[in-house]
């Protein structure tokens, strides 16, 4: 009785639709060349199914849209802010809230407040914008994720875990004073949406407490992580997602949040901390970069939609359907023998481009190449998470990450099962013809976050 499917049928029905454009192979070819083989540079109307990101692409609920109409656009003291503040305190347990226009706004401010020049920031795998803000603030990121995370075939259930021995070596080498906090992400994006276990978090908390180091939580997909704890970790089967989320947050001192993921909004984020001094400094900085501390660069209506979305994001039925759809797609891919990161993560499928295109060396960007080929086949837009995203070190040399992945991120509540079938079939078709695919070379490279705007041509 292998592969009995637990139905993930949606706990909602569709209230409003957005029409899609269909393209021909010739049109796609032209569009791809014009976009320099970078899926980021395609126009959205050239795309059939858009899996570029799950960030800001969710379908809001009718309740969130109703909240949009209740936006209080007062510059100072908007009632939507107080609603959001209350929801953050209740759901996550953090004391003080600073809204920002999106997650990177929060990372920018947090890094500026906590990091001094020469500091070391350990974390469970880098994330592009997070590491950049740490570096710009004068810090250096050090990866302390467990080794299994770098092995796409390992079936370890909590590949987002932190290796406490690695952390301890850093503390011994640099001293706890130079480590202002551990940057801990739930559902580690670059590892393929892999969760961290509650046991690991507790151990991290105990360790950092002994050394006086803070834990800052990148919580953009905390609810998806909570779902895996519920499914996989002993003692959590009967707990609600809401309870698990709150327990996760309780082992940390603060968080940055891009609400464009779990919280089901199109724009918004925040910084939440328990320490008054950090809060005060963050509040002074937010007016410089974002906006007054009671709107943080967001329209009132967006704070309202976020407050409602946070409530919906920790609903058990919602999260089961969400992750269920991702697993459905992953299993289809596995049936077609497509090499993907195992176990299947919470927000997308990560195809192993090194195994998919073994004849293309990493210098020729196999993941970038594969993303381009999939678009060409069907108009499905995915993105590279490999050597292009990893960027360059301070000395100018390229980071060569072990993982060379193409990310198929699934927007929340947007696509149907039939869309998932099309995606799997298209990827299978490209897989069948993989031997004929040639690599790429980079012809324009921007200074920061190069994957966004880099341009390529066929090698």
């Amino acid at each position: 009785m292998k592969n009995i499917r637990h139905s993930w049928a949606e706990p909602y029905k569709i209230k409003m639709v957005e029409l899609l454009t269909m393209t021909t192979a010739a049109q796609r070819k032209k569009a791809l060349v014009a976009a320099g083989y970078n899926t980021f540079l395609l126009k959205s109307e050239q795309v059939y199914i858009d899996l570029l990101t799950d960030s800001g692409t969710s379908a809001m609920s009718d309740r969130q849209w109703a909240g949009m109409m209740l936006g209080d656009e007062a510059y100072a003291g908007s009632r939507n802010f107080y609603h959001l503040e209350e929801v953050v305190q209740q759901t996550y347990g953090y004391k003080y809230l600073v809204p920002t226009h999106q997650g990177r706004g929060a990372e920018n401010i947090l890094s500026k407040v906590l990091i001094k020049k020469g500091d070391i920031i350990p974390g469970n795998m880098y994330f592009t914008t997070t590491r950049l803000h740490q570096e710009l603030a004068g810090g250096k990121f050090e990866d302390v994720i467990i080794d299994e995370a770098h092995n796409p075939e390992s079936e370890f259930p909590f590949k987002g875990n932190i290796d406490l021995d690695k952390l301890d070596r850093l503390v011994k080498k640099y001293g706890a004073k130079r480590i202002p906090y551990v940057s801990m992400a739930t559902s580690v994006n670059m590892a393929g949406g892999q969760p961290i276990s509650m046991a690991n978090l507790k151990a991290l908390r105990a360790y950092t407490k002994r050394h006086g180091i803070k834990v800052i939580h990148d919580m953009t997909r905390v609810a998806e992580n909570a779902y895996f704890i519920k499914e996989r970790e002993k003692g959590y089967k009967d707990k609600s997602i809401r309870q698990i989320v709150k327990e996760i947050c309780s082992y940390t001192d603060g968080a940055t949040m891009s609400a464009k993921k779990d919280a089901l909004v199109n724009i918004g984020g925040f910084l939440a901390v328990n320490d008054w001094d950090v809060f005060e400094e963050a509040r002074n900085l937010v007016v410089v970069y974002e906006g007054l501390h009671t709107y943080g660069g967001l329209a009132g209506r967006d704070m309202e939609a976020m407050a409602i979305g946070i409530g919906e994001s920790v609903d058990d039925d919602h999260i089961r359907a969400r992750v269920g759809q991702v697993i459905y797609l992953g299993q289809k891919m596995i049936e077609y023998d497509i090499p993907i990161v195992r176990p299947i993560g919470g927000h997308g499928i990560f195809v192993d481009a090194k195994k998919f295109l073994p004849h293309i060396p990493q210098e020729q960007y196999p993941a970038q190449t594969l993303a381009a080929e999939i678009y060409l086949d069907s108009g499905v837009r995915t993105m590279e998470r490999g050597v292009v995203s990893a960027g360059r070190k301070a000395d100018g040399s390229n980071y060569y990450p072990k993982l060379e992945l193409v990310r198929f991120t699934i927007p929340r509540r947007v696509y149907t099962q039939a869309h998932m079938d099309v995606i799997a079939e298209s990827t299978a078709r490209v897989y069948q013809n993989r031997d004929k695919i040639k690599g790429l070379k980079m012809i324009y490279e921007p200074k920061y976050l190069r994957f966004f705007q880099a341009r390529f041509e066929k090698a």
Partner: protein
Amino acid sequence: MKTIIEPFRIKSVEPLLFTTKEQRKELLQKAFYNPFLLHADDVMIDLLTDSGTSAMSSAQWAGIMLGDESYAGSKSFYHFESTIQQLTGMPLVIPTHQGRASEKILFSIVGGKGKYIVSNTLFDTTRANIEYSGAEGVDFLCEEGKHPSIPAPFKGNMDVEAFEKFIQEKGAANIPLCMVTVTNNSGGGQPVSMANIKAVKAVCSKYSIPLFIDACRFAENCYFIKLREEGYSDKSVESIAHELFSYADGCTMSAKKDAFANIGGFLAMYNVELAKQCRNLLVITEGFPTYGGLAGRDLEAIAIGLNEVMDEHYLQYRIRSIEYLTEKLVAAGVPVMQPAGGHAVYLDAKTFLPHVPVDQYPGQALIGALYVEGGIRSVEIGSLMFGKYDADGKLIPAMMELVRLAIPRRVYTQSHIDYVAEVILEVFEKRNQIRGLEIVEEAPALRHFTAKLKPL
């Protein structure tokens, strides 16, 4: 017909909450005499700002529903981009989550220690961003702009002679940018004439200094040009705007003003290299270049709003509403900035409260009184916002002590405005009882947003 009616009707309303004078006294005390710290629910008429507080049109709300939320290459972005290209003539358009982010990016690139950014008058966040980069902001406002009670048609003009003298003194190489704010917000919402922009441009060209426009209220400024400047009465606001932008090398805009949007802003320019640098910084703090930290729907709303604002029936109604309130106050002898500006009425707090010295923040004292009397929230534009301390910790006051009553676009009716006038007159009668304030807590930059005060 004398009455100018609104060129719209109301499609959706938002109820106001009423408070008593006693409640407001307590609320103000709890907000440390800083109305920025009041809950919006406790305010009846909110004239704190015209930024982000406009009523969007039904067409804009429809645009909100059409928002394309794709992370990259959103349809809404291309609509936004082509609208701004047509308006400004500038080919490179960069969206940002709001105006201050545009400034932040621009000045991080062109600013820096030893540099000077010159202007008619820089606004608070603009100045903060310039100073944050290490550069210094220098204002050259024309003489008539410095005297609130003297009427002149273009009190936002830049003093071109002083500007040129400054260049000769400091060297053009140390002045990476000249920024003209239209209309001049800190100076009373006063317009800049086309002749002045041309003269500024001539000086800029002579010394190869790029001219940027802070375009937050470009349409209001263009309408004043149409009304007041010779040779423009028969031109459309749109063509005046085209001419205005044609003299600039770039612009920043907070779309929360003249684009009727609740959030959003942009940078536009010709210089390809500068735009590349701007986009490099944009992805760090704002977002990908085709959304810049905005939802797709907001890009759509801005594109629609930018065209709505140039409707002359709207601008006539807009400018006339501000004039209407100003006239009522002038008739009763209240000291106000004259002539009326484009987006706000400015009370001259120094004359209003002659018994409160500048280091006791007369503007801030006056806004407290207006709130207690009638639940009106306004903002101080004086020494709390722009004051600095000298080496001995003594206050260096701002040039003027103003209270700004900014009128949100398309939000309040004539009867709301009548009520505001009545409240101001009440306070004017009792002005001798108003006491000054002292600061008990302040942040190092942009202190007026979060400062705590207490009465003396």
